[in-house]
């Protein structure tokens, strides 16, 4: 594995985030009232909750605020910003632990985030919220447990939930959906599980994307159950329109479903969750979505397995830039930019969706004290200026880049 690759990306700045550079999968931009451009970042694990970084000048990032979690067993992992409101997910290590749920903050004064509401999602069998999607200022779509959601298998503990936050001080649940057969009391038979131990990761929700182009659809990654497109025109009763599952023979952990509306394509990612690529292949898939009830896989994005698989830590797909429907997010339906743990950040041209072509690569050298001896790039966000932000999962913090392709 090469020490560092910087091909068609130009590194503008790196910020180690004061030594707390283990970052999750929440990255969102705020334009503050005084004009500052601030990126809010969720941490992968305690002790830090979230960090705000002023990236008005992407070559000189400056920390605005860094906050603490109340418990060492919590992780925030995911956040989203709309205007001056930020939603932050809270997940605990063990079922039953508290606080678990999500919190809304007023960040109109970025140095002093002010809690508006905390929504409790703890329960005897709940770990709380792993991921949330909040783009319209009205609804939070999330992967969460709940006190009244009990599954046959603890690994299936997080379902898709919709919260109305139009009254931000009093959010209320308006709908939920889970894989039939996973909940205690379901009439359907329990689904067949993937092979234990390392391939049985659970049939639960992960990313819950909803876009204004189709506000009546949720594009749902459901880990070992594949992906679903849900009809949410009646939020109280989400209905599955299709399920696409690559596993077996692949190894599950379906993570993200990104719809490219103008192109009739879905981009679907798996997540690599086992070191040394023992759960390989974990890929970015391109699906023909001309018929949303029958998506057809037509390609995957190429990855250099031989050079990276055993270099240390995880190697394989994870997050991609999701064309977040906000003015501060870059939009592209021909370029896919994703993070691949020790495989770094990679950009693919999918203008011919049958033949994705890699057009840019950024693999930073291992940060000092990296526990796996490699970078483990975890998430990516691209702002409307085309500036790329990517974070390390363990210690490396924030990397800011320009595209040059």
């Amino acid at each position: 594995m090469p020490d560092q690759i910087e091909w068609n990306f130009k590194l503008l700045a790196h910020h180690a985030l004061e030594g707390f550079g283990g970052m999750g999968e929440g990255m969102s931009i705020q334009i503050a009232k005084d004009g500052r451009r601030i990126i809010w970042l969720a941490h992968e694990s305690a002790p830090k909750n979230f960090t705000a970084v002023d990236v008005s000048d992407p070559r000189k990032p400056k920390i605005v605020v860094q906050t603490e979690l109340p418990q060492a067993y919590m992780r925030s992992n995911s956040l989203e910003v709309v205007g001056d409101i930020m939603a932050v997910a809270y997940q605990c290590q063990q079922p039953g632990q508290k606080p678990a749920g999500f919190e809304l903050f007023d960040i109109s004064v970025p140095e002093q985030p002010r809690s508006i509401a905390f929504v409790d999602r703890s329960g005897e069998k709940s770990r709380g919220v792993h991921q949330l999607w909040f783009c319209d200022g009205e609804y939070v779509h999330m992967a969460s447990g709940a006190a009244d959601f009990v599954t046959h298998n603890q690994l299936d503990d997080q379902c898709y939930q919709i919260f109305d936050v139009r009254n931000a001080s009093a959010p209320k649940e308006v709908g939920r959906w889970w894989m039939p057969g996973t909940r205690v009391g379901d009439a359907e038979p329990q689904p067949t599980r993937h092979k234990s131990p390392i391939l049985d990761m659970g049939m639960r929700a992960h990313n819950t994307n909803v876009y204004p182009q189709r506000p009546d659809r949720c594009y749902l990654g459901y880990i070992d159950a594949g992906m679903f497109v849900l009809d949410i025109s009646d939020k109280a009763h989400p209905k599955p329109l299709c399920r696409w599952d690559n596993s077996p023979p692949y190894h599950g952990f379906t993570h993200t479903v990104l719809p490219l509306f103008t192109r009739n394509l879905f981009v679907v990612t798996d997540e690599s969750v086992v070191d040394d690529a023992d759960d390989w292949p974990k890929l970015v898939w391109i699906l023909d979505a001309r018929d949303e009830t029958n998506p057809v896989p037509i390609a995957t994005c190429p990855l250099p397995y031989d050079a990276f698989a055993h270099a240390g830590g995880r190697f394989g797909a994870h997050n991609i830039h999701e064309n977040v429907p906000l003015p501060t997010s870059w939009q592209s339906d021909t370029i896919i930019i994703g993070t691949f743990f020790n495989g770094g950040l990679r950009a693919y041209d999918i203008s011919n969706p049958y033949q994705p072509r890699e057009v840019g690569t950024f693999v930073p050298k291992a940060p000092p004290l990296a526990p796996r001896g490699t970078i483990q790039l975890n998430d990516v966000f691209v702002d409307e200026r085309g500036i790329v932000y990517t974070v390390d999962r363990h210690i490396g913090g924030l990397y800011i880049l320009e595209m040059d392709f």
Partner: protein
Amino acid sequence: MRHFPSPDIGMFGRRQRHARAHRIPVRIVTRSAGALSPGTAIVIDRFGADDVMPLPGSCPCCTVRDKLQIVLRELLAERANQHQTGVVIETNNELGPILRTFATERALGAEFYVEDAPDLPGADVHQFVLTHDAPLSWDAFCRFMTTLTALRGPDLLLMKGLLNVVGCRGPVGVQCMGHLAARPVELQAWPAGERASRLEFVTRGFDAVSVRAMFDAVRALLPG
């Protein structure tokens, strides 16, 4: 793509930030390359003057390099382990076959882009620029180039530039060597204040006046 349209895809594929697109930049030098930036591979062309062959399926005059091409393909094959962000070729051999090696996607033009090369030598070489203010139809430009290369292909040492093509949002980068044309690339935007087509020519035995006359004559036969 017929079934998968995009507002970012034009007549010539995805609109690019620059003419190089994602391709690896290549610099050709006839002296020592000097200090190299990290990630730049150097290829020393010791294969001699005989290392030429016609591009398969092409005319005898469109020669490309043989062993040199193999070395470059090996660089591509090793990219996962040894990533190149640039290539420098040190050579004392004829430049034409080297440039033609990168001139088409069928050769190595899909992966490499010659950013810098010495001027083509020759006592009787003409160098000139053809400009045209009004937008051109792509059909008219193709007819012009087809006629020019049919009549004087072996003497068209190099043609490159930007075109204002009817129906295109940005300028279209074109390049031609002899009978070989690179795939056109549409850029995302024009440089500020520019809209005119501008083509640079390096030719042998014919000059700007004759090219201009042919350009006007072919265009007169077609709308646009």
